[in-house]
């Protein structure tokens, strides 16, 4: 039997990393998707392609870019270390950044489709009823789009949960610190611990299937008769 140390520690770490990654990617994803859906500015299509890039690029390539950016000698990493004493490489926060970048396009795409699917009449109606722009967004736009956004966020969570390549490049595989479920599975198989691997694989599968079922249900609106 695998010990709770071998199961529980990577599970909790994974949930923590995926949870933060989902939160951060959702906030940025919603904001940028709203801008892309509602505003007109030059270079919009280039921005859209950039935002979708992490979905098609190999995770190890993304991880390499992040290392170049955030490493001790990286463009941003050096500044962070020298001025604030922050190191992101080989920490769980680094894993969050890797998972955020990989999961971001899923929220962004879903949110953009959701915002673009809203009939602008509803927002006009709210304005004509005396609502300021933030109130229009909170009372009309977001509620009408939130099912699509939530479905995207859940897919992002699932993607962050299974993140392997970029996380390994940025955060490594330090048991108890940066060794997430999918990395733990790999390590267990490498070490010949089949019982641990089996347990972790089944656990991961259950979590992912539950998320897919829940997000499928969310996509069905309840108010249309």
């Amino acid at each position, binding site marked *: 039997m695998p010990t709770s140390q071998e199961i529980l520690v990577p599970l909790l770490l994974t949930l923590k990393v995926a949870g933060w990654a989902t939160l951060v990617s959702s906030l940025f994803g919603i904001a940028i998707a709203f801008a892309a859906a509602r505003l007109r500015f030059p270079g919009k299509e280039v921005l859209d392609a950039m935002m979708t890039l992490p979905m098609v690029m190999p995770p190890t390539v993304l991880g390499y870019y992040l290392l170049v950016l955030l490493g001790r000698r990286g463009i941003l990493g050096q500044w962070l270390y020298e001025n604030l004493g922050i190191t992101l490489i080989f920490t769980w926060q680094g894993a969050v950044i890797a998972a955020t970048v990989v999961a971001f396009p899923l929220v962004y795409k879903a949110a953009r489709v959701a915002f673009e699917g809203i009939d602008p*009449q509803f927002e006009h*109606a709210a*304005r004509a009823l005396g609502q300021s722009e933030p*109130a229009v967004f909170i009372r009309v736009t977001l509620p009408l789009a939130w099912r699509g956004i939530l479905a995207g966020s859940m897919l992002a969570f699932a993607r962050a949960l299974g993140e392997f390549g970029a996380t390994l490049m940025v955060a490594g595989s330090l048991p108890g610190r940066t060794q997430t479920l999918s990395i733990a599975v790999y390590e267990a198989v490498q070490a010949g611990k089949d019982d641990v691997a089996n347990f972790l694989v089944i656990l991961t599968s259950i979590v992912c299937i539950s998320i897919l079922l829940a997000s499928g249900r969310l996509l069905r609106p309840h108010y249309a008769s």
Partner: protein
Amino acid sequence: MRIEVDIRKKLRSNGRDFSLDVKFACEDELNVVFGPSGAGKSLTLRAIAGLEKPDYGRITVGGTVFFDSLAGIDLPASERKVGYLFQDYALFPHLTVEANVGFAVKRWWERHLSAQAARRVAELMELFELRGMEQSYPAQLSGGQRQRVALARALIRHPEVLLLDEPFAALDPLLRNRMRRELLDTRSLFEVPMLVITHDPEDVASLAETLVILEHGRVARKIDLKTPPFRDGEGHVNERSIRGLLVDVGREEPPAPRPTMRAVK
């Protein structure tokens, strides 16, 4: 209530240029802008409500300047005290009938309506015969009920003028006459002036006191329908003479574009 509109706007859609150059003033209680589709009626109405920004011009309602390109005034839609009835009503699909009606009197951080606002909502629900539908969603209502919800929602903040975009187009033809009568009752009950845009001659005959005919983005005619030959001495509408006015609308060719600087050179 005097409404003055004098605006210009150039649009490009589907590769075709459209230029709106509309100037009219009206001060009756029931004003109808009539014109074929594509004449610029909706654009004009949206500009008055602040949902569309004209390129140049001036809009004043009841002495308040809504828009004045020379003075740099462009009041946001939320600060223009107008009620707007959308063609397909634009009821919020995610909110109940009660929440739709009370939308304008609830702030977004409040969970519930204030006691005063709740009384006002209940009053309007009663008046528009919507009692018992408080918890229904718009998708569950009939066309006539949807229009009543939309009217109640627009009237709850005491607008100075009610703008109606093809108010009966979304309704069953059999229901239209009844809803026209209801609208007239609503107008006198709330004492709110109305500006209706339509392409239905029936609407003109049953509603208009002042008629503005719009063609190809220009005002073709403005007619007072309160006096003979359009109304007899007792105030009855002479439908035939009004229809006679509208028969040829939209049949003419668009006017030649006004000479531009380049053409003059």
